């Protein structure tokens, strides 16, 4: 994509990124640029490095960047702590949201929201004001108020966990959201709720990266770009049609691209 005078600055730039964990190379030179208002889908087989890419962007301590850069709003964030990235507006929706026994969901959401608000120089919310805000956001994911008094994700069904992720996204109002298989384990109704939630939260100033195996989420949220990953590389990039073609022909079809790449 050529940048012209009129084009806004990119939100996220991943430049030739390589990364490893326990001496195992997982990413082998990934490049990806997301501009405001864009939705990108990343598809690929299990183990191709899609989840790793999302974790590295969020700052997971288990991975080492061996080459390349990640830039967020023009700044290199390679060495930022995960919480600094989150505060500045990077959101990772987890494939498997983590259970945290004993910590109330409400308190967790409040502390997290306030950390982001503090970064934005907005007033931090007390318990009462936060209640008001969270009530409004619960609507978006059609979650019951009762979820707030439970421990974070503990005993939640798969669908409830994913909705809780989108609730967090709604509260944090990120500049970029990377949603790692948010659609997996959801029934049709839950998928629609989650998809409509994502659409409500995003706008022409935000970027979204959807990591998915399936077309069905992309039926609900049409991406501007589809990237196919294999063995730690993006081997093909196309429009939303690429996902449909992939659905039809399967990943074996993409094996040909590896030779081309």
């Amino acid at each position, binding site marked *: 994509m050529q940048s012209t005078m009129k084009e806004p600055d990119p939100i996220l730039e991943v430049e030739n990124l390589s990364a490893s964990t326990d001496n195992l190379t997982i990413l082998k030179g990934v490049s990806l640029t997301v501009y405001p208002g864009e939705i990108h889908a990343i598809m690929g087989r299990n183990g191709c490095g899609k989840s790793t890419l999302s974790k590295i962007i*969020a*700052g*997971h*301590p*288990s991975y080492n960047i061996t080459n390349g850069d990640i830039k967020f709003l023009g700044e290199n964030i390679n060495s930022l*702590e*995960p*919480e600094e*990235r*989150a*505060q500045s507006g990077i959101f*990772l929706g*987890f494939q498997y*949201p*983590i259970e*945290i*026994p*004993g*910590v*109330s969901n409400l*308190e*967790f959401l409040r*502390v*997290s929201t306030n*950390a*982001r608000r503090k*970064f934005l120089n907005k007033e931090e919310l007390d318990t009462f004001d936060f209640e008001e805000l969270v009530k409004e956001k619960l609507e978006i994911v059609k979650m019951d108020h009762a979820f707030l008094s439970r*421990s974070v994700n503990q005993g939640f069904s798969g669908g409830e966990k994913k909705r809780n992720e989108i609730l*967090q996204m709604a509260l*944090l109002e990120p500049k970029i959201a990377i949603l790692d298989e948010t659609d997996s384990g959801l029934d049709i109704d839950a998928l629609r709720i989650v998809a409509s939630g994502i659409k409500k939260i995003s706008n022409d100033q935000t970027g979204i990266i959807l990591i998915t195996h399936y077309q069905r989420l992309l039926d609900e949220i049409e991406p501007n770009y589809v990237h196919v990953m294999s063995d730690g590389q993006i081997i093909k990039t196309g429009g939303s049609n690429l996902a449909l073609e992939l659905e039809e022909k399967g990943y074996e079809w993409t094996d040909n691209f590896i030779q081309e790449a």
Partner: protein
Amino acid sequence: MVNENLVKNVVKEPYKYGFVTDIETEKIGKGLNEDIIRLISQKKEEPKFLLDFRLKAFKKWQKMIEPDWAGLGYKQIDYQDIIYYSAPKQKEKISSLDEVDPKLLETFDKLGIPLTEQKKLTNVAVDAVFDSVSIATTFREELAEHGVIFCSISEAVKNHPDLIKKYLGTVVPASDNYFAALNSAVFSDGSFVYIPKGVTCPMDLSSYFRINSGDSGQFERTLIIAEESSSVSYLEGCTAPMFDTNTLHAAVVELIALDDASIKYSTVQNWYAGDEEGIGGIFNFVTKRGKCLGKRSKISWSQVETGSAITWKYPSCLLLGEESIGEFYSVALTNNLQQADTGTKMIHIGPKTKSTIVSKGISAGNSINSYRGLVKMGAKATGSRNYSQCDSMLIGDQASANTFPYIKSQQPNSEIEHEASTCRISEDQLFYLQSRGIEFEEAVSMMVSGFCRDVFNQLPMEFAAEADKLLALKLEGSVG
């Protein structure tokens, strides 16, 4: 590796209460013998029965052997190298708080326990103990209007000898154990509480124990008596300066609850724990026991143990009265080279007695944190029940947690339930919280206080907030 990070980062911030008050003190010579005991008793102008009590205890102590069954590692204590009486020099008779040495008042001010009339805490009466003596007790007149006696045990010996004679040593006999015998021989001060029949104590009572002197031990003695249908909530806090030597603290606490009476005893223990290499710190060898003497009486212990180099402490309940209830809620946090061996004994003697044990141990650094508890159902404890839950949380990979539950039942018609779990703060949990903008340290302390929630819920309001803060402080690191 996250664990290495944790161990490095999750180190306590400097101990906030480590200052020493520069004050003239009256100390007696080091060492322990009959003359020393006579001297202590004489200084306190005690009646003969108490001197006899002390001397008898001393004779017993001399024949006893320091216990080693807890497997705690520490340098042998030289009991002849300790000063057994140390008191700040004061005027002979103090009639009001205004006559207390301002340095002492300042000390307690700094500890967050203001004592003067203008500044004193409004919702709680405080007995402030400095080294071997009680400095001041607030709200005495107000409490007296309700018939509640709250004073230092030395004053109680003088003013209420009958109560002392009747109850002292009836829950923890002098011969109970090595440290209880030592305490019985040399105890210097402590708090005394008497709640008359039918009275609900109008405010929380609290004692604050401060060790100031480096070479003297603190041997306080607390006695609380709740008459028929009365109730009281009692809080205890402790701090000490930082010395590079170990200071011995061997206290005895006795609680007595008569028919339908209830006593709630809460402790936040923050004695100096020693430095990162394990130099210095308090040896906290304490015997705490409550006797549910009356029918439907209730004794509830809650404790947050964060300090001391070594903690050896088992607040227990003797459940004699029919349908009496014993409770133990505990959070013990150890870091660096601290060792804690703590738990409880629930001795069911009467029928239909009930006990609950909830213990949460958190071990960080190279510390060792053990729960040791006994649940005993006596032959007459028909229809009695116990529920125990012991959870351990490990932070880092150098800390250890142990659980030693002992169960003895002579009564087939009783129920004992025991649950135990161990967890570790996982990298995934930390990353999840961090990826939501929550700082590393706050993430750790959120999980720790979440883990302790069941116990914190049992603490009086203002104490719960303090405990939460204290744990966060203890785990606060120097991330950078």
